[in-house]
């Protein structure tokens, strides 16, 4: 079964008595190639056909840059909000016992399970100036729907579980004795939390941040309903891809897609490194 070529001094895999390596790895690679790699190579090939100068012209087009800036900017702000409130929610869920904790815990996963288009129309209806939340914010001069703020709201919704679900298990593992020691040594509660606990949670929080951020950058379904879609102001990069397609401008669509793809891949590598760091600390 082992498909590994036995070359001197180089081994594809460590020896193991467990069977099925060749089969499962073969299946994995075949499936991966079929669904992910070949289509992505098609995209890369199409954008490579553009030629460097043309690609560069599209990539540095003001509207492209603005769309990328808006996508990354709003995803960043949303991820920051999620880090603050996601960590808080995780803390409340891990440390406090209260009625309905199970339900609240389950609710956190709602954005995973709720289709993004449903989230999009629901949030838009809520935050439009004649919606429940929008009409309350209107007298304060705050507009949410059809502004970049609306994009942030949608991305906060989408990204919340990523932070909570990465931070929560690590929080559960924290040894209470550390806190007791800190308290015994005279640290105030606030000092214990900020100086002792949070540094330990940092890798998990960072990972959650990166996951929420990565997801937010590419999000489409929920955002297009609530964003105003104004070029250079509230037009996200995935929407710009769709718009370029609708203009029959395939080169631009593929070029922007290729840029986003490269960034997504980079972010994943960073996330995997963060997770490795996380595991090393809490192995």
């Amino acid at each position: 079964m082992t498909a590994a070529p036995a070359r001197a001094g180089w081994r594809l895999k460590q020896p193991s008595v467990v069977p099925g390596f060749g089969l499962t790895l073969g299946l994995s690679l075949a499936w991966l190639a079929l669904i992910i790699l070949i289509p992505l190579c098609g995209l890369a090939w199409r954008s490579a056909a553009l030629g460097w100068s043309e690609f560069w012209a599209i990539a540095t087009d003001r509207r492209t840059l603005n769309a990328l800036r808006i996508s990354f900017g709003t995803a960043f702000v949303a991820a920051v909000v999620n880090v603050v409130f996601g960590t808080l929610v995780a803390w409340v869920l891990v440390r406090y016992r209260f009625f309905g904790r199970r339900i609240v815990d389950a609710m956190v996963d709602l954005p995973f399970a709720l289709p993004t288009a449903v989230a999009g129309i629901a949030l838009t209806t809520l935050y439009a100036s004649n919606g429940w939340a929008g009409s309350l914010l209107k007298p304060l001069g705050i507009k949410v729907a059809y502004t970049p703020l609306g994009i942030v709201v949608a991305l906060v919704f989408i990204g919340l579980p990523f932070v909570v679900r990465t931070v929560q298990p690590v929080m559960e593992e924290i040894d209470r004795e550390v806190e007791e020691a800190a308290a015994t040594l005279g640290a105030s509660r606030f000092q214990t939390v900020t100086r002792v606990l949070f540094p330990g949670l940092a890798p998990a929080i960072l990972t959650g941040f990166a996951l929420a951020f990565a997801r937010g950058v590419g999000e489409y379904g929920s955002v297009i309903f609530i964003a105003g879609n104004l070029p250079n102001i509230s037009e996200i990069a995935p929407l710009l891809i769709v718009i370029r397609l609708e203009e029959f401008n395939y080169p631009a669509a593929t070029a922007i897609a290729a840029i986003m793809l490269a960034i997504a891949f980079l972010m994943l590598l960073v996330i995997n490194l963060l997770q490795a760091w996380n595991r090393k600390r809490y192995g």
Partner: protein
Amino acid sequence: MTKPHFKLLGALLAGSVQLGTLGFAFADTTILNVSYDPTRELYRAYDEAFAAHWKAETGETVTIQQSHGGSGAQARSVIDGLNADVVTLALESDINAIAEKTGRINPDWRTKFENNSAPYTSTIVFLVRKGNPKGIHDWGDLLKEGVEVVTPNPKTSGGARWNYLAAWAWANDQYGGDEARIRKYIGDLYRHVPVLDTGARGSTLTFAQKEIGDVLLAWENEAYLALDEFGADNFDIVVPPSSILAEPPVAVVDANVDAKGTRKVAEAYLQYLYSKEAQTLIARNHYRPYKPDLAAPEDLKWETKLKLITIDDPLFGGWKKAQPHHFGDGGVFDQIFKQAQ
């Protein structure tokens, strides 16, 4: 995988597949009409009428499938291989794009049906809040302080292109053809736009349902439909003294109907749009029928006094010239929009 729950899962999955395959009812012929956003209601009524007509005429049952979306997006789908029998889009240039990029529509498609293959026309009007609180009567009023204008993105929406060209034509008259001032007017106009939807229907929803903006630049038919849907006590239609004659054309996708053997019914489908029954439906759905004398007089309630410029006017030189000049990549709209911000 013999665990009970996997069995159950398997049975459920198998069941749903069966349900699926049973569901596709078999009709004698099926044709697909790929259309743009605001025609949903019109074609829902027309498809029924045509199916009945075809049944009476030939004894065959025909099922018409509909696909709606922004005109550009729909053309893109057909270019990428959506198997449309007929396309009924917002602009000639979207059909031209299909013809040029795929060759699946013969280049002389505009000559196939009467009136350059436009069985109905429309124009661009203003939809304003009840009582017209901002006093918007003409294109110049759109630039008044504090007026928010809702219009879709001309790069993706056919209706928005008509809006843009109508505004351009007004400015051309107003400023005696001084292009710098026309461009300034258009740029200022888009500075008043708070939401730029990708399709005409999206803009209507933004204006009527989300209550954003003071005036919606809309297809005349879309404006009347909004009155029907959201109540005439919420909005007024303002017809500006001048606008543009919008001609949404129709075409048979030649290569597709020949491959599917549906040419006869597809051509009949478009031809029947010129019949008395269809022209009546067209007027009832607030489009301007090509042959108004065939429609019911009570449906012909729109303003006829406004001055309508056509796309073939020397100012624009037809879609073949206007499309790349104004809306192409780096075209006039791109240049103006860059400055506008």
